[in-house]
């Protein structure tokens, strides 16, 4: 491990988030380059797509962001320490070329595209700049309110695909084959649906469970369906020095080989937890929308790639 440190002394320069002499353009939401207007220039190098006009928005604060000043936008983007760290750490890398710093950042106010909330969709293969790797969704957890009290013993008796052990767990465990999922149905009428591979599948599955409950004679509704968690995974295809990563990204990383072989990276923006393994496999979880998974991966990929060169 000593050799690693000696070859890259830059890794230890302390920095503050605002200390970076860098344009705001960083890799972010590259996926949306196809969904929205084309970026101002199509670069040939990595990480130089100008996507600073894209705010980090949800349906709620859409209006707020649209009226935000461009400078505030910059500050918000600069403030994300995780990105700034890797940007400044790896500016010496020739492959990471950033567009000219003097280039004016696009006035955020006039470039805001008509934003639609991130409707779930199959990922479009990103143009060229990004990693070229798309995380695959592995599990979706959703909840829905059937809005009626349920007799769990009754359900377990009348349904073939139900399991009920009140001593072990206070809910019926029900499964359907298509989409292959599992549901936890509580006597309050609340239901959790797990195992789906996409948001739509989760919704379809939840509706089927609700129908089963309806057919069993309960006045089940389908209220407040919500995706609670999404898990994705992918492979960067090169080994990663976790002990190095935890050194340079200490405030986000937890690497305890005594406990768990992977490094737990808590990304701030988006708020996603990544499990990074020495084999190069990455698990991303904690997302409410799939765009967060893609964004998180595009954020971590340059960091991981930087470690590949340094080792």
């Amino acid at each position, binding site marked *: 491990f000593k050799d690693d440190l000696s070859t890259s002394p830059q890794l230890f320069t302390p920095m503050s988030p605002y200390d970076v002499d860098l344009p705001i353009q960083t890799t972010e939401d590259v996926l949306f380059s196809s969904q929205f207007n084309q970026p101002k220039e199509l670069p040939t190098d990595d990480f130089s797509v100008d996507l600073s006009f894209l705010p980090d928005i949800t349906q709620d604060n859409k209006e707020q962001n649209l009226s935000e000043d461009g400078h505030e936008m910059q500050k918000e983007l600069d403030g994300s320490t995780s990105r700034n760290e890797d940007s400044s750490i790896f500016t010496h890398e020739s492959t990471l070329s950033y567009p000219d710093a003097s280039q004016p950042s696009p006035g955020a106010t006039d470039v805001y595209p008509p934003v639609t909330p991130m409707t779930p969709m199959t990922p479009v293969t990103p143009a060229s700049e990004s990693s070229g790797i798309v995380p695959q969704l592995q599990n979706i957890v959703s909840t829905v309110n059937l809005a009626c009290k349920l007799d769990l013993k009754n359900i377990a008796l009348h349904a073939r695909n139900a399991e009920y052990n009140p001593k072990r767990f206070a809910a019926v465990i029900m499964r359907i084959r298509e989409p292959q999922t599992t549901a936890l149905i509580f006597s309050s009428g609340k239901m959790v649906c797990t195992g789906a591979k996409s948001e*739509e599948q989760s*919704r379809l599955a939840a509706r089927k469970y609700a129908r089963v409950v309806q*057919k069993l004679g309960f006045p089940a509704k389908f209220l407040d369906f919500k995706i609670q968690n999404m898990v994705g995974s992918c492979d960067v295809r090169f080994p990663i020095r976790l002990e190095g990563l935890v050194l340079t990204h200490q405030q986000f990383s937890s690497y305890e*080989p*005594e406990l768990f072989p992977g490094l737990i990276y808590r990304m701030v923006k988006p708020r996603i937890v990544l499990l990074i393994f020495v084999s190069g496999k990455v698990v991303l979880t904690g997302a409410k929308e799939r765009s967060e998974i893609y964004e998180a991966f595009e954020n971590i990929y340059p960091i991981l790639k930087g470690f590949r060169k340094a080792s």
Partner: protein
Amino acid sequence: CGCVLAEGLLTTTYTEEEHLREVAYSHSTGQKEQLSRCLQRGIRRVQDLCKVLQLPMVFEETAVSYFQRALQHPSFHLVSLEKKELLGGCCVFVTCRQRNWPLTMGTICSLLYAKQELFASVYLSLQKELGLSVPALSLGDLVKTHLNSFRLFQHAADIPAPFVEDKEKMVTRTMQIVELASETWLVTGRHPIPIVTAAAFLSWQSLQPATRLTCTFTRFCKLAGVDLPPPAHLRLKELLEILLRMASQLAWLRVFNMDKKTVVKHIGDLLQHRIFLLKTAFCLEDGEEQHTAAPGEGSPGEGSPGSPPAAGEAAQEEGCPSEGKRQCEGGPRPLLPPCLINPRKRLRTAALSASDSAITGDEPISDSEIEQYLRGPEEIRAFRKAKAW
């Protein structure tokens, strides 16, 4: 100000004074009462742990302050007593790690008689809730501390004389082997102690191979008075494999038919030239650092037969061109973590098929599909009988 006393305790005359008891400052000011009993007990426990581990005073203060902060935090305020006890140990553990004091979780868990899973969950919550950044365990320090517990540095009745070893030499060599393991991906993601134990064994054997080659790993640990953790055998195997590959690059060793036993005799040489040997014995992934494969260390006498002819011969033998081409056609194996070299065959979940991706979630659901999940009346009767509901 004022406290309510029970009736009859306030006396008016000296002769009535019966309870001549001094009121302690802490009592009258309620100093002790400000800290709940739970907190007091916890703080005492933290202090005791620090004393047992012989930690500097400043560690104790830090650990206690973490503990107080943690207990006030909503996520720890109401946890079980068992968890609160572990919380104290976690605070000590975090303090040690932050100050590069090599303390393993295993040690703390055994001191607390705690289950490691429970300790792990409390530790991770503590780290998250208090936003503590905990640096990784320093392997170098761990080697020194772990070797301290080995009994082989002094003569004893049950230890054969040739088995006793000089501590300094053993620490140095074990460190080098552990570093080698780290460079060759044997350390990342694995428990550290088994690696250190395996490295200690190899270093001990190599310091006096004549008498020690016959001693097994198990016997070594018994003599040394340390545990032999199960993964240590695997780590030993992996280390030997690396050393054998390195040995194949040393010209004067190629004449010998190296195996797991004989390579131990040459560990000293292999460690001395390890940087060069690693570069030639393994195909580095990117290969950009490979070009400067000058034998920087080692005397010229050893170096010259080592470098060009060895590289040339290596090229012949193993098919990896000496220009440092990235592709290795079945020659020196790439320097990768073992999990990538021997991947376990795993069911790869197929990506969503075209039909799956076309799902909108609003498809109509047929009655027949739902009915397949419902029991018929006869089935229900049979079930009722069987389950006696």
